[in-house]
């Protein structure tokens, strides 16, 4: 074996090598004092850098999982209350129906600004927005592009309306007679999609990748459903 370079030493010390490679390195070290000294020096340096970075640490905040779960649940309640209000308005007016479309449509921007995220106090996050409608046959939801991060959570529901809602910064939605387009370029939001069990022909596409189809009772998706019957699709796992 040749002498170890810095990268191989780092991989070795970090436990990143496979069994065979790690054994080969160990055997080489047993015979080569020069590499042994370099590995010892690298260990010392790692310890020193670790200690120096540790100087920057502040105490871990005393926050528990229960606090986070409560805050998440509070946001659900707020957003559902706002959604219910929007639904009432739509039922009353149906004024925002798309011209030429028979579907009842509404677009709701639900500005749900959590208390802790003012511009002065922290990141502007937690904005939600969504679209809900009776799906046509066929009906297609298109994300114009994939995202570096974010999740699409697809749930089958008993209601008759198809809904898509962003958790994170709300993208723009274009509503067409037979579908919705999510203009999500640059977004990192998560999305909740509610697909009516009664819908006959639904397709969800991310760029050119079809990630979910429902034809009558037959469902084909990019992922298996979880224990709750939901389909959790990670943008990062989709082909770019």
């Amino acid at each position, binding site marked *: 074996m040749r002498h170890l370079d810095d*990268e191989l030493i*780092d*991989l070795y010390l*970090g436990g*990143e090598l496979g069994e065979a490679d790690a054994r080969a390195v160990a055997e080489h070290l047993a015979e080569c004092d020069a590499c042994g000294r370099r590995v010892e020096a690298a260990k010392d*340096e*790692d310890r*020193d*850098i*670790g*200690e*120096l*970075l540790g*100087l*920057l*640490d*502040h*105490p*871990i*905040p005393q*926050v*528990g*999982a*229960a*606090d*986070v*779960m409560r*805050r*998440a649940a509070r*946001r*659900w309640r707020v957003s559902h209350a706002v959604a219910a209000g929007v639904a009432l308005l739509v039922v009353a007016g149906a004024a925002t129906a798309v011209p030429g479309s028979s579907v009842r449509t509404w677009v709701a921007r639900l500005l749900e600004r959590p208390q802790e*995220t003012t511009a*002065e*106090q*922290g*990141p*502007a*996050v*937690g904005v939600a927005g969504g679209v809900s409608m009776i799906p046509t046959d066929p009906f297609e939801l298109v994300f114009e592009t994939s995202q*570096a*991060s974010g*999740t699409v*959570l697809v749930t089958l529901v008993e209601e008759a309306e198809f809904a898509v809602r962003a*958790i*994170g*910064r709300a993208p723009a939605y274009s509503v067409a007679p037979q579908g919705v387009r999510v203009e999500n370029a640059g977004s*990192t939001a*998560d999305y909740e999609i509610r697909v009516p069990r009664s819908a006959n022909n639904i397709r969800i596409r991310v760029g050119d990748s079809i990630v979910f189809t429902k034809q009558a009772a037959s469902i084909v998706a*990019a*992922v*298996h459903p*979880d*224990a*709750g019957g*939901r389909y*959790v*699709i*990670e943008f*990062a*796992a989709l082909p770019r």
Partner: protein
Amino acid sequence: MSQVAQTGSRPFDDVFREEFERRFPPLFRYLDRLSGDPDLAADIAQEAFIRLYRRGALPLNSGSWLAVVARNLFHNARSKSNRRRRLLAREEAKQLVLDASPSPEADLATARKRKAVRSALDSLAPRERELLVLRYEGYTYREIAEILDLKPTSVGALLVRAKDALRRALGDCGDATP
């Protein structure tokens, strides 16, 4: 292609609590070291966990998933406000007070060293800084690649370069010599 971790029949709340206990401290430290702003780090780390909880299922690698979400939130927050700059100014002001206080010699030396490490880290290219902070927080090469959107095979070489850069930067700050 499935990206959902199998959690068996356990209630998600229990799974989430365990994940929180295990992953909140390293996520907070990553953000804290990256930003130098513990309040911002705490806000963002909690927000990332809120999103995990609302997701209702664990991703395959929740460590890197949380870090990706938190990192995006951090970059959004930093680009949207001058908060960090103001906080750094406040930190520097605190540091001056600390330096001027009649603390024991060891405290002063530590405070100077801390300031020098912060300066050295901030002087690195953003990717080098993140590589180092993630690596020394215990993230694996594969997780680092996922978080920073790098090829896994390039992480080692980039880390070596980042360490070199840090060594040079620390060399410019005599107070940070270990």
